[in-house]
């Protein structure tokens, strides 16, 4: 039985009459990096805001570290660092002052302030106020705030927004390091699979308030394997289909082309030989490889 850091049971939420979340059962394993994926407006932020108590829960249950959230809110929040949507910074204060006011709340050692600033690549911003920071710097400082009290769980809602490509890679490496060396469980949301597929161990895909997939990245990759297709285009579609049926294959026709599931190289060669031997001209044999992004898009479109 896996040990879950976050679990939601049938989490359902309405804004006015509209259902924005429908029975979400999130299972985030301890020690994992969980990628919470979905297009804009899918319900990612609402789920995270509900989980952290920023929205009043309507239906369902939320557990952190095996404990119900609302009954254990303070002890749970001590172990969580979060960044929800845009950066939350006091613009009239410096980076150190922003961290200092949270250091007072968490009562963590003062040395942590410089440590997390170094971690996120903002070792010395001097007297510059947070309002004068670029979006990327604000995002980094927000991550530093989330890390300040050395949490067991990090919840990051689109943390790479506003970062340049180098910044994205740096944050990705930092999160990997925190997960591997410090054992921090990370829940990271994004609308781009490509952005987080090099980082996550587990994936949850949400669209229109429904969780469409949840599992390990390997499970998702297996789906990718299953989605490989071999495409044939010939001069005689009927004869080709008959020949394929003789080999116990189940072809289908799409846009004038014959589609088969992934085939062994030998089978493709045999089919080709037989088609030629039966006077069928073969114009095209190709293998269509769906990447994870297209599986993700396919999942949210169907």
């Amino acid at each position, binding site marked *: 039985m896996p040990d879950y850091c976050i679990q939601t049971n049938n989490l359902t939420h309405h804004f006015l009459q509209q259902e924005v979340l429908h029975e979400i059962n999130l299972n985030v394993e301890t020690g994992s990096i969980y990628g919470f994926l979905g297009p804009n407006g899918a319900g990612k932020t609402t789920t995270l*805001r509900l989980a*952290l*108590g*920023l*929205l*009043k829960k309507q239906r369902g249950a939320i557990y952190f570290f095996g404990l119900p959230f609302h009954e254990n*809110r*303070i*002890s749970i*929040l*001590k172990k*969580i660092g*979060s960044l*929800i*949507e*845009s*950066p*939350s*910074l*006091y*613009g*009239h*204060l410096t980076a150190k*002052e922003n961290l*200092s*006011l*949270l250091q*007072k*709340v*968490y*009562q963590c050692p003062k040395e942590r302030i410089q440590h997390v600033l170094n971690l996120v690549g903002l070792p010395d911003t001097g007297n510059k106020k947070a309002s004068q920071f670029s979006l990327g710097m604000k995002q980094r400082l927000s991550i530093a*705030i989330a890390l300040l009290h050395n949490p067991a769980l990090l919840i990051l809602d689109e943390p790479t927004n506003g970062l340049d490509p180098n910044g994205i890679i740096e944050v990705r490496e930092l999160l990997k390091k925190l997960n591997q060396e410090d054992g921090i469980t990370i829940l990271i949301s994004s609308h781009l699979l490509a952005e987080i597929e090099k980082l996550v161990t587990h994936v949850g895909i949400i669209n229109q308030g429904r969780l469409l997939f949840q599992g390990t990245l390997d499970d998702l990759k297996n789906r990718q394997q299953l989605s490989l297709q071999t495409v044939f285009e010939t001069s005689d579609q009927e004869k080709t289909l008959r020949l394929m049926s003789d080999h116990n294959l189940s072809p289908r026709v799409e846009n004038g082309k014959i589609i088969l599931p992934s085939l062994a190289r030998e089978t493709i060669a045999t089919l080709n030989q037989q088609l030629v031997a039966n006077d069928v001209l073969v114009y095209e044999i190709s293998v269509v490889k769906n990447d994870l992004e297209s599986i993700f898009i396919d999942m949210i479109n169907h």
Partner: protein
Amino acid sequence: MSLSFIHSFQSERLKTKRSLALWIVIIGGFFTPVIVTIIRLVQYKTLPAMYSSDKFWMQLWQNSWESMAIFLLPMGVVLATSLITQIEYKNNTWKQLHTTPLSLTTIFFSKLTVILVMMFQFFVLFNIGIYLSAIIPYLLVSGVPYPKAPFPYLYFLEQNLFYFIDCLPIIALQYLISMQFKNFLVPVGAGFVFWFGALASLSWKYGYIIPYTYTTFLFLKSGIANKAAIPDFNFHWLAVGYFVVITAMSYALYVTKKEKG
């Protein structure tokens, strides 16, 4: 008092650093004393007689509080209280604050305490300013004696306490409104409306039901009482009552708010 409240209070205090609310307190505290000092320096010929008067300190107190009690103090409280809560809205930090391991009660009361402490700071600065407005002309203008009248410590302390108490309902109501509305104009606009309402109702026999009237009543009571229908009971208790009731309502609205960032 729990430790988390103290830590939260320290954190809230740090948020006011370089804030407009803090500047309002500092500038507001010295504004009237500076004006009084300038007027005295301009009218320096009248100073020797004035400084020899037995009523010197009482007159200075009245002069200093005239614009403060009726206009600057209520407006300053409206602005400072609204600005303190707006720090969270303006910076989009309610969500950050509400994911810290602090109870909602701690957050609510530590913010309120910061406002009360800032008001206390204002009173301290204002009193220092009043004293300096007496001493600076004495130091700068030759022939002006040190005030002959004894310094009325107890009277000043008592009046300060009453003004502070009379501000409490304004603080509570502004705090309630500004915690509920993201738009800064709502609490400030409401504050102006209540203040105008208070001025308009000063001569009404039930004017005391408007909680923004008490600082003006207190000022007029010790001087030109015939200009207002000053209640003949101890309205400071009414101010305390308003403060307690409005704060309780404000707390209930805050903890039951559906969206917390």
